């Protein structure tokens, strides 16, 4: 709370206000323009690594504004009316794609879907050519999922559209990390000072990398947990703590984020069997008993019931899995809105 100084036009600090959900104590003139630099000026969302804490908080706050839209009877706002959003999912994922689709539609945008399951992607065409063809159709925002790390960064250099990274290989999955952070903040009221564990195949997980960046920038302490073959020491260079004994870590944690174990890892013999994996790293009801009573259990989905997560835990009161899906919609609406606003003055 600043004292008004002689040099500036006096903006006396706001006294404590009655608590209204979502209100923030910034002083504004009635036109809705905030003082100072805009918090978000990026035309793309390529990763969390390059974002500042202020930018991340701004996305989460904006998402709060959009969360309400999904509770209305007419679940639409005109924010992206007349704009075209294209989903280019070279590596398909029905749930992420439909989440982005629905988010764009709630913002009144027109939505195009290109995904590898259908024949809508030409065989042999390079992703650069595909993206430029999409742009030539008049698309404003492209949501990209690709199996190659850095694909979003690469395409952002090739086209003028806004690019939102929906997952690039093993590198980042920014909107997942953001919706996880939103869910934690919604449940715990804050992120700073919390102890968060991410459990599973960290080495191959873009969700893990994005989450490590996101949570750290917001002041949480992150521990990555899993077998030595899937959680290399190198992750300490990202600021996370590395642990291989899940039971030892559990009692201290405020949030435990379970990652899906993929069959391919078993094939490449990074651990001998799912049975052994579950015994060492599965979130069972017994392990839940040893956690804090108000621990938040998270999972990006889809769940392998009985493997990384026991059914009772997935469906239990500490699980936020369905909240994550709902919040994912609000976060993606916020992201599409913000990149569009950033780009609109440049046009």
């Amino acid at each position, binding site marked *: 709370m600043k004292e008004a100084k002689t040099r500036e036009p006096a903006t006396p600090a706001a006294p404590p206000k009655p608590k209204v959900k979502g209100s923030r104590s910034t002083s504004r003139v009635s036109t809705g323009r905030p003082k100072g630099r805009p918090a978000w000026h990026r035309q793309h969302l390529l990763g969390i690594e390059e974002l500042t804490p202020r930018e991340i908080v701004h996305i989460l706050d904006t998402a709060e504004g959009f969360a309400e839209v999904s509770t209305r009877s007419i679940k639409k706002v005109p924010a992206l009316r007349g704009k075209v959003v294209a989903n280019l999912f070279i590596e398909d994922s029905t749930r992420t794609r439909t989440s982005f689709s629905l988010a764009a539609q709630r913002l009144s945008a027109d939505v195009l879907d290109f995904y590898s399951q259908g024949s809508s992607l030409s065989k042999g065409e390079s992703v650069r050519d595909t993206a430029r063809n999409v742009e030539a159709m008049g698309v404003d925002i492209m949501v990209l999922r690709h199996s190659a790390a*850095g694909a979003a960064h690469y395409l952002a250099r090739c086209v003028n559209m806004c690019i939102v990274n929906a997952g690039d*290989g093993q*590198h980042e999955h920014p909107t997942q990390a953001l919706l996880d952070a939103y869910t934690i903040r919604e449940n715990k009221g804050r992120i700073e000072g919390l102890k968060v564990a991410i459990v599973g195949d960290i080495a191959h997980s873009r969700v893990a990398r994005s989450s490590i960046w996101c949570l750290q920038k917001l002041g949480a302490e992150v521990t990555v947990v899993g077998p030595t073959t899937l959680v*290399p020491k190198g*992750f300490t*260079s990202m600021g996370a703590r590395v642990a291989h004994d899940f039971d030892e870590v559990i009692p201290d944690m405020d949030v435990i984020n379970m990652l899906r174990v993929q069959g391919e890892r078993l094939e490449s013999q990074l651990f001998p069997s799912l049975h052994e994996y579950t015994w060492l790293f599965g979130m069972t009801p017994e392990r839940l008993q040893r956690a804090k009573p108000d621990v938040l259990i998270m999972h990006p989905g889809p769940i392998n019931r009985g493997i990384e997560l026991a059914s009772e835990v997935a469906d239990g009161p500490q699980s936020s899995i369905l909240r994550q899906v709902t919040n994912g919609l609000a976060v993606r609406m916020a992201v599409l809105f913000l990149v569009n606003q950033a780009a609109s003055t440049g046009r």
Partner: protein
Amino acid sequence: MKTIVIKNGRVIDPSCGLDQVCDLRLAEGKVQQVGKVDHTCDRTIDAQGLIVAPGLIDIHVHLREPGQTELESIETGSAAAAAGGFTTVACMPNTDPPLDDEAAIEFVIRQGARANLCNVLPVGAITKDRAGKELAEMGRMARAGAVGFSEDGCGVASPAVMRRALQYVTMFDKPIMQHCETSEIAGDGVMNGGPTAIRLGLPGLPAMAEELMLQRDLTLVAAAGARYHVQHVTTAGAVEMIRQARASGQRVTAEVTPHHLLLTEACVATYDSNYKVKPPLRTAQDIAACIKGVRDGTITALASDHAPHSVAGKELEFQRAPFGIIGLETALAMYVRALIQPGHIDWPQLIRLMTLGPAEILGLDKGTLQPGRDADVTLIDPQRTWTVDPARFRSKARNCPWNGEEVTGRAVLTIVAGDIKYCADADQGRINH
């Protein structure tokens, strides 16, 4: 073949320790006189301010012919070499089909002669079809003109095959040149393994992959007593192993590329495929160790590993793009930047690393300006600054990480067997007709 007198240049000949301003006379394709020379000639070249060196030799280039001439041909590759100041190049056998028999070797030599821009010396494959199983006809290839044997693009995976190859090649007194990479450790790695690869989400290719094969090979080399050359060394551990092998009397040599002396794995953060290369760009400590290896004579040759790819080929996501960086036309300037400008070595040492060093590795009677030897001469302007513009390269390829940069040091005249094969535009005036 005209008679040429090159006067007033700083003549550096590492084979006899010569480094002084004097004149050179070339006649009938050979060096005739050094020092005070007879000035009657067909052409006089005033080399004031320039270095007069033996023709530069690059023992590691890819010319993509036969089979992939859309990427590069022996002709365009030779033109690129001459423009870079190289009078001799040794080209690798990972063509399509590979250079694994006499006919292929003869084909490359013929094409090189037809292009008539520099000496093109083929390196034969170690195994048939580069499949790593059966030895190729090294004897007949050597007779046809192969100067060494390599599987480059990959290493020889089987210890038994490598052992046999090292034993066999001693009959022909040619080196085995190994691309050290244990493929099972390398996996699908696309950049140096380590924290940066983890951060960028890219599969890593650890230093261990290079060092493990080198370690194995050095044991086999000691037993066979063969000549063994380590291609594109990149890790501190590998340099140390080579140092110790040489100290214990093994006939082991090594080369290093310009990009492995200048660029680290941090460059990959942009996901620009112009930084995708095998072996991958490593760390600053590895670069320092390679430079130390150059200074103390562990590494005796500099080589570009010129690896052309099509523009469309490289315009892909990092993980999908092919490996390779071109280098013939920028190598000299980049060595100046990596080694001369920071003061690690001086010009006579650099010339040695680019002439006599490579010549000795391949057993060539080149890399020297002594009278009676081939008139392969390169004139270098050590002060000349120029801007790297891939659009003006004579190579077909454009995959260069130094696009647009201002660099210092350039070959301004390249003479092969007494004929001028390349002349940098601004120097036309120095040649009197």
